[in-house]
């Protein structure tokens, strides 16, 4: 089968599966949804009034709940395809445009941090492999492990406390200052990047370590290959060996790491945005949880997942161009 068709089919299948999961979750888990919400509310907030409880139940149970499952499913599927994700009771607006207005901010900090993290990690890892066993290598290995063991949200809290409040060098919250108007002006772009600094730093500081360590391991392994020895014997300049022979082969296995980190960063962004009060997808998702706004919550989940699926599809598609050796077919024998 053509690899492209297969990969695209898989992406579409994933999106369909996620829409179905979303439907199942909105439609509710087994048992009467009203009772479950009532019991939940009583556990967390015993002195909630009866009227408020009824309103809550009404908000969380979709109107189509009385329809038979297949009808409701078809309706949901078609409305999602049309881009209709339901009505948000908390924002008092359609869900889809609400999400579209915050998505760019999440993509901004996501791509900034991924790019920086990999640039620093790959460079440092290669350098460590080159100086393997030196004091620099030992120190950086220790530092990489240490920084990697700090959860990104802990780093975020520390950065806010020190750089945000104590020293006040970077803004601790928000996507841009109120004074600047969104637009394509240099001033606005600078302001947005300035506000994105701390969220990005929290990811980069805690994430570069594992990339550096993996890159170091890969490079050391590649340095031991015989073609490197042959290249040296042929008198190829060191610089060319480092970039073309070692670098390229050591980076290739990292592609999978990149794929995995895309999903991870999108998830992490949700936590970070809440800490930084950064008005992106995560911020919106937490507001929807706070206000029991189930359509908004499922909408953000759906959009985040679709964004990840698309990102992975692009990354996968470019891999064949990076490494022409990938096989297209499935050549394993069935037992």
């Amino acid at each position, binding site marked *: 089968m053509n690899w492209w068709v297969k990969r695209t089919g898989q992406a579409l299948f994933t999106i369909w599966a996620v829409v179905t999961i979303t439907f199942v979750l909105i439609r509710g888990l087994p048992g009467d949804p009203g009772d479950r919400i009532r019991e939940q509310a009583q556990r967390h907030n015993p002195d909630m009034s009866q009227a408020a409880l009824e309103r809550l139940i009404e908000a969380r149970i979709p109107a189509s709940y009385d329809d038979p499952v297949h009808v409701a499913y078809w309706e949901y599927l078609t409305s999602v395809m049309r881009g209709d994700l339901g009505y948000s009771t908390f924002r008092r607006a359609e869900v889809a445009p609400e999400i579209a207005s915050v998505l760019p901010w999440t993509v901004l900090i996501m791509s900034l941090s991924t790019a920086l993290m990999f640039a620093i990690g790959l460079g440092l890892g290669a350098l460590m492999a080159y100086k393997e066993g030196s004091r620099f290598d030992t120190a950086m290995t220790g530092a990489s492990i240490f920084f990697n063991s700090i959860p990104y949200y802990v780093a975020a809290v520390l950065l806010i406390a020190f750089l945000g409040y104590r020293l006040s060098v970077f803004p601790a919250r928000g996507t841009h200052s109120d004074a600047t108007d969104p637009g394509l002006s240099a001033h606005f772009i600078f302001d947005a990047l300035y506000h994105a600094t701390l969220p990005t730093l929290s990811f980069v500081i805690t994430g570069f370590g594992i990339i550096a360590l993996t890159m170091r391991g890969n490079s050391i392994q590649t340095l031991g290959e*015989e073609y490197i020895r042959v290249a040296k014997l042929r008198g190829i300049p060191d610089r060319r060996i480092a970039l073309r022979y070692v670098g390229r082969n050591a980076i290739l296995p990292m592609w999978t790491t990149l794929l995995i980190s895309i999903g991870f960063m999108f998830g992490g962004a*949700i936590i970070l945005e809440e800490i930084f009060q950064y008005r992106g997808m995560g911020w919106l998702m937490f507001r929807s949880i706070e206000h029991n706004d189930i359509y908004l*919550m499922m909408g*953000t989940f759906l959009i985040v997942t679709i964004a990840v699926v698309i990102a992975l599809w692009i990354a996968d598609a470019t891999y064949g161009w990076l490494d022409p050796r990938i096989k297209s077919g499935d050549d394993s024998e*069935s*037992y």
Partner: protein
Amino acid sequence: MTVNRTDEPSDDEPGSGDAGSRFDGSALFDRDTDGTDREYRADGGQSAGGGQMFSDSEFTDVTMGQRLSEVFYQSIYEPFVVAWEDWRTKVGLSIISLYLLLGAVAWVSTSEFLILDRITIIEPARGDGPIRLAPFQDWSYPLGTDMIGRDLLAAMIHATPRMLQMILAGAVFATVVATVVGTLAGYKGGITERALMTIADVLMTIPGLPLVIVLIVLIDPSSPYLIGIIIVVNAWAGLARTIHSQVLTIREHSYVEASRTMGIGTPTIIRKDLLPNLMPYILINFTSMARRVIYDSVALYFLGVISVNTIENWGVMMNIGYENNALIIPEVSHLLFVPMVFVVGLSFGLILFSQGTDRLFNPRVRARGSGSTKSKDDEEITTGGGAL
């Protein structure tokens, strides 16, 4: 021959051993008068008599105990000795043991089980101390107290058992599911492989944290075991993928083919031929799953997605600190920093441990570390190098 397969898989066996057994085989082969089984001999079977190689008992029968001790020796003891040579493993394991000890202390203190009922090493935190005491001021409250006078050290220690339960449930669930799916898909191939790997691919693409948040909000679990399992609800997929690709290479080895030719069933082949090779790898991934459970659970408690009223989790304590403006007011900042130190400490221990065991999978790193360790790969390289 049937049973001796268990000790053949290791790549670490020096080449001389192989040659020896092969030599034995050919010697027997010469003595053989009955020519029927000749073609089976060539791969180093060690049977003594001719013609009855599958029913031979004297050499090939291994008792259950021997087999168990062999598996233990090869997949636990030997890797452990190799890994222990690295300082990272030593430090990492000590840190992990320290947390297990804390968990045990808290468990004994609160347990109502027989005699343990009467032993209380550290009292659970109650609000009876001075309010907002900073750490290292009063040694009856070493890590200070919170806004209502609860001892932070006691609270931290008593949160440990729940954390450990959650970590254990999540890590066990993820590794077991991943191993079963990965080996089955890798070994069976065909439609099973395609179906299982498609499921894994789909789950892998869904970003974990948003899915976990949605599930937790809708299910609203309170059992630490359930929370642990929900957190890794799709994390196992990535591990299943890597195990799958490892199985794909292992299943091409001749000893697996030999088992298959002899008509041994799939579950037995997976258990005896494939799993012993994968064991170290699975153990390492157990620690990374554990780390993931710590990260995500603390984050979810910290941001109040999982709601509890007691301070039974490090994340909840961070939440309390955060809500009380520990970021802005330096006097209460320890409410935030003390739990952070505990989280980072455990995670640091787990990373060190898995980094230290890295040499188990990377023969070349291993050979550099200690010159005496030899592996098949290295031998091939040195002979190749000699020819150059």
